[in-house]
């Protein structure tokens, strides 16, 4: 077990190396002078020279990469071109709203989706099942921002029940914090709920056709007991996997959700960085988001042993 954990942690090194090479190499794969593209159409040659120097573009490729990785390992993500502030500091300022939004979405989605999936599987073939599946397909198809605008229209403009946009920190009170977080969480969570509910249903159906489920029913256990203790426990591994993989969907959705609801988080920082062509910030954000994604999936992998004691490493 211990050896497996070490092996699994070491396996993230090549993955993160590829991420780093991609993020760094992009600058050189793009056609033309990256400094000129970043500087924009109205740039003077002095601007371009300044960006050249800032990105270290005048040195050989491997020297640049080694310098960059070395700085990275020391927690230095470079300097923003637009604001001249360290990227890590800019990212640090924006972490809180994004963390609040993604964690609340994660909690709500998982606690809605798994019961939905279990219910659909338990009532397979009935209208309940069909309703859940229809909801899942629609959840996949309605883009985050369309759903976000529908929510804003219904709950903010028509009903005037929730604030249209913005973010209020938890330190300013629980009520305003939650009221600003409700709609972004629903908008962001819809796809994720659809994804998890679908896999939960499929995984449960698989388990429910096993012999030990029939045995459990035959010996007179209650339906709830069979579903939760016998079936859900055994269906847990694929569900944990999709929760981990689905985080990628969440991260993509955060960028959009924060734009629609004017939440000053990492997604908003990304959009601002794109508009200003501030590439060091984009590099930093991709590295951090990918790092979180890899970390979460590492935890999911390690959780298999807890979820299913039959798994031995």
């Amino acid at each position, binding site marked *: 077990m211990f050896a497996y954990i070490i092996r699994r942690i070491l396996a993230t090194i090549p993955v993160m190396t590829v991420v780093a090479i991609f993020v760094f190499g992009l600058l050189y794969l793009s056609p033309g002078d990256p400094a000129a593209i970043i500087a924009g159409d109205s740039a003077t040659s002095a601007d371009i020279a300044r960006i050249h120097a800032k990105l270290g573009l005048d040195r050989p490729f491997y020297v640049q990469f080694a310098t960059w990785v070395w700085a990275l390992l020391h927690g230095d993500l470079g300097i923003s071109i637009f604001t001249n502030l360290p990227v890590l500091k800019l990212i640090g300022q924006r972490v809180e709203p994004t963390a609040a939004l993604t964690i609340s979405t994660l909690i709500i989605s998982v606690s809605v989706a798994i019961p939905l999936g279990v219910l659909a599987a338990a009532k397979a073939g009935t209208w309940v099942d069909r309703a859940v599946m229809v909801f899942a397909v629609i959840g996949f198809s309605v883009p985050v*921002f369309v759903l976000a605008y529908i929510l804003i229209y219904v709950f903010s403009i028509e009903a005037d029940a929730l604030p249209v946009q913005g973010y209020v920190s938890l330190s300013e009170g629980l009520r305003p914090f939650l009221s600003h977080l409700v709609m972004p969480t629903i908008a962001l969570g819809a796809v994720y709920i659809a994804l998890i509910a679908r896999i939960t249903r499929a995984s449960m159906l698989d388990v429910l056709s096993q012999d030990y489920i029939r045995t459990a029913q035959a010996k007179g256990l209650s339906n709830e007991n069979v579903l939760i203790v016998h079936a859900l426990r055994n269906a847990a591994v694929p569900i944990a996997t999709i929760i981990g993989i689905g985080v990628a969907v969440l*991260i993509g959705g955060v960028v959009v959700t924060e734009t629609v609801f004017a939440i000053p988080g990492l997604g908003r920082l990304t959009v601002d960085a794109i508009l200003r062509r501030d590439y060091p910030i984009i590099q930093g954000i991709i590295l951090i988001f*990918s790092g979180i994604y890899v970390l979460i999936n590492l935890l999911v992998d390690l959780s298999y042993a807890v979820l299913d004691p039959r798994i031995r490493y």
Partner: protein
Amino acid sequence: MAVAPTDFILPAAPAARGPVRTYIRRHPTIVVGGAILALMVAMAIFAPYLGTVDPQALAPVRRLKWPSTTYWFGTDMLGRDVYSRTIYGARVSLTVGIGVAVLAIGIGMTIGLVAGFMRWVDAIVMRVMDGLMSIPAILIAIALMALNRASLQNVIFAITVAEVPRVTRLVRGVVLTLREQPYVEAAVASGTGTIKILWRHIVPNTMAPVLVQGTFIAAGAMITEAILSFIGAGTPPNIPSWGNIMAEGRSLFQVAYYIVLFPGIMLSITVLGINLLGDGLRDALDPRLARRL
């Protein structure tokens, strides 16, 4: 929906049903999804004949008019007809969806076939793909768009790069299982060349899962294009894509929500159609999976 089964016309004796009728009955999602997609494609092709005007025509006098019999979907802040822009927007979205699906499958399949058949390539390629797959797809597209000038080709290219690893992984997985099949071993034993084995025995067997994956890629690519355009990193603003129309309506949402509403509905319906088609195809092509999902 025009394609709904009309059983009441004929007596419901199973023998009397034609093959088309049986097909609709057995795969309703393929028919409904296919019909929605066909409708959208038709709309995109015949956009100039559907009562549209020039989607770029500016007219400050008639700016921000609410939907009416003259302006079906209203007009935007520059007086452009939202109906015409939305109809023409189908062209952009479908081009991106289909373009990305075809390119990603072409590239992903080639890499996947090579990786599945050559062990030393496999080791390197799959490490690279693992790394790329740990970057959320939208961020890959954003990074590429931040470094390239906004154009439709660059949008298609950026989303394709983000989708290739998943196709590669899928194809490689299929190849690895097929490679152990007796008929492939027999072909190897009888001295058939690698290229011929790939083409004759492997490629046809990857078609079903790849086709299903292709529909989901197309649906995802259309959403990604809209997201990219919406946040200002996608199709150039002079092209009326659904994402662009919605981005323009963003700041006006509280006074003129219809600008965001109509392209949003169109995008959702189109993606829904493609997803239904994909679900149906998967059920039809892989009955083992169909029972589960």
